[in-house]
């Protein structure tokens, strides 16, 4: 860990929050996505609509939830319903952003959260899709959150749980997924990435404070596109940090996970 006055969870949440547009409908899971959405709402995006897959729409969370169906996700909501209703909203085009994690990701933003190794005899069996496949397929812009490690950022994922751009431009549409959707940003503990318009390949667009380009390349298992105007991302502002700490997660329910460098759930 570098010497700094914020932890990695705080940093990632702040980087992600900056990418959220106001007035967007955001499908969120527990953890960083919650912090990011809530922070954005307090800062520049007061009119977003947070949605939880188990059935909570636009709650006013009194504390950060501990799971996607937890009572905090429906507290003072504008609507509580069932899961089909939530995914039908996404199918209908009412989902600007979705946040996904995963165990592996490749250069086209395909995500694996099912198996490591051969499907029939996996060396690791992960939980499977959960909501990810539908989020990544039906929401307009998929935001991916991952730890930046060579074994995770690989040439070709062992199993496509959630399709990104599959094998390149046009492949999503050819497979039959709703047009205009796909991976949009990747947030890691080292960098901010997007997908280059023409090739649909993952592209480095920002380095987290104090991270070097070489560090990112070393930790990426495929050839990374790099934007011409690669920037070192500005560190958290005092305002971002204080809102995050004082208003978003005052009890450090999620923020504390950065303190001990614990793993992000997928």
């Amino acid at each position: 860990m570098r010497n700094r006055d914020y932890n990695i969870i705080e940093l990632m949440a702040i980087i992600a929050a900056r990418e959220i547009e106001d007035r967007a409908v955001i499908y969120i899971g527990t953890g960083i996505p919650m912090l990011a959405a809530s922070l954005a709402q307090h800062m520049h995006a007061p009119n977003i609509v947070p949605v939880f897959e188990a059935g909570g729409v636009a709650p006013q969370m009194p504390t950060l939830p501990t799971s996607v169906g937890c009572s905090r996700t429906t507290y003072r909501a504008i609507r509580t319903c069932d899961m089909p209703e939530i995914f039908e909203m996404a199918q209908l085009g009412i989902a600007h952003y979705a946040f996904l994690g995963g165990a592996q990701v490749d250069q086209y933003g395909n995500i694996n959260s099912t198996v490591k190794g051969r499907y029939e005899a996996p060396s690791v069996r992960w939980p499977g899709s959960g909501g990810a496949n539908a989020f990544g397929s039906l929401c307009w812009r998929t935001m991916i959150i991952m730890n930046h490690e060579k074994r995770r950022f690989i040439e070709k994922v062992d199993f496509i749980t959630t399709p990104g751009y599959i094998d390149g431009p046009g492949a999503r549409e050819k497979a039959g997924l709703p047009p205009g959707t796909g991976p949009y940003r990747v947030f890691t503990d080292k960098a901010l990435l997007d997908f280059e318009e023409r090739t649909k390949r993952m592209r480095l667009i920002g380095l987290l404070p104090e991270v070097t380009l070489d560090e990112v390349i070393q930790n990426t298992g495929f050839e990374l596109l790099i934007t011409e105007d690669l920037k070192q991302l500005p560190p958290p502002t005092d305002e971002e940090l204080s809102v995050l700490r004082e208003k978003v997660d005052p009890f450090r329910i999620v923020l504390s996970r950065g303190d001990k460098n614990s793993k992000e759930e997928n």
Partner: protein
Amino acid sequence: MSGKVIEILEEGSGQIFSKITPNEFREHMREKVKNAWRDKRIDIKTAIQQFVHDGDYLTMGGVSFVRLSMAAVHEMIRQKKRNLNLAAGTRTYDFNLMLDAGCVKNIDCGYITGMEIFGIPYMTRKNAERMITDGEMGIAEYDNASMAWRHKAAAMGIPFLPIRNMMGADGFKHSAAIKIRCPFTGEELVLVPAIYADVCIIHVHRCDIYGNAQIEGALNEDLGKSKSAKRLIITTEKIIDTDEIRLAPDRTLIPCFYVDAVVEIPYGTHPTNMPGMYYVDIDHMKEYVAAARDRSSLEEYYNKYIFGVKNFAEYLEKVGGKERLHYLEDLEHLRVR
């Protein structure tokens, strides 16, 4: 015959573990719903004995650490139910306990073994990997949405629903879904087969003696599940008068004619969260995940909390009794942090 056809573009090779057809289910419901106004109160032991059979296709309500019918899960484990086929969309603690106890034969997978912020219990993951590799457990791949829609299709009385995800994903190949060209739009669509289950268990906030049930908070897949199982066991925090049901009929999410058994079990979802009543017992969750690190500590956990008690009331004493439960109530209502 028009001579025209709908192209099937691709077929998954996964098995369908629930073999009930819409017509069979219709015949079943025709008889079952005649019991709408029967007093269905029963104890959990009898309910599980009577309605859950080895080899059944089972589907359970709740999600994550919320509103899982833990009293029923404990009882199924105590009764050593075997070879169950499980609808495993959005499953966590309930699934893990049953898998490790040896109750499970095949699963339709949406989400298994994961415990969100608590990670994946080591023993459960190892268990799942071994059972898959040895062919001991059959598995078909879906996702939370397609599983929810499969339940919904059944509840609607139709054999499939068209959906717009699962395309371009490897899960499709290991599912029983098919991909077609839509006869109306010309676009690709996936059809997922309905799941008509043998038995469903759902924990609710309150219901009357006939089973008319109200639920608060996120409903997850419970509407679809409760309406598409041959046998439905409702476990409930509280039994209320039918007059209360009739005062707010928009809130009767499960009408009585779907219900076979009503079991009153206060705190029946502990250690999970009952929205508006008591919060998730995070300490107990951590205790479980820690116990699941090796076989002997996991066995100890089962022996202490499941095999070592004769019913759920005794379990509740073991986890801290009234004091603990009141604390969880305070937590839910934000009276403590």
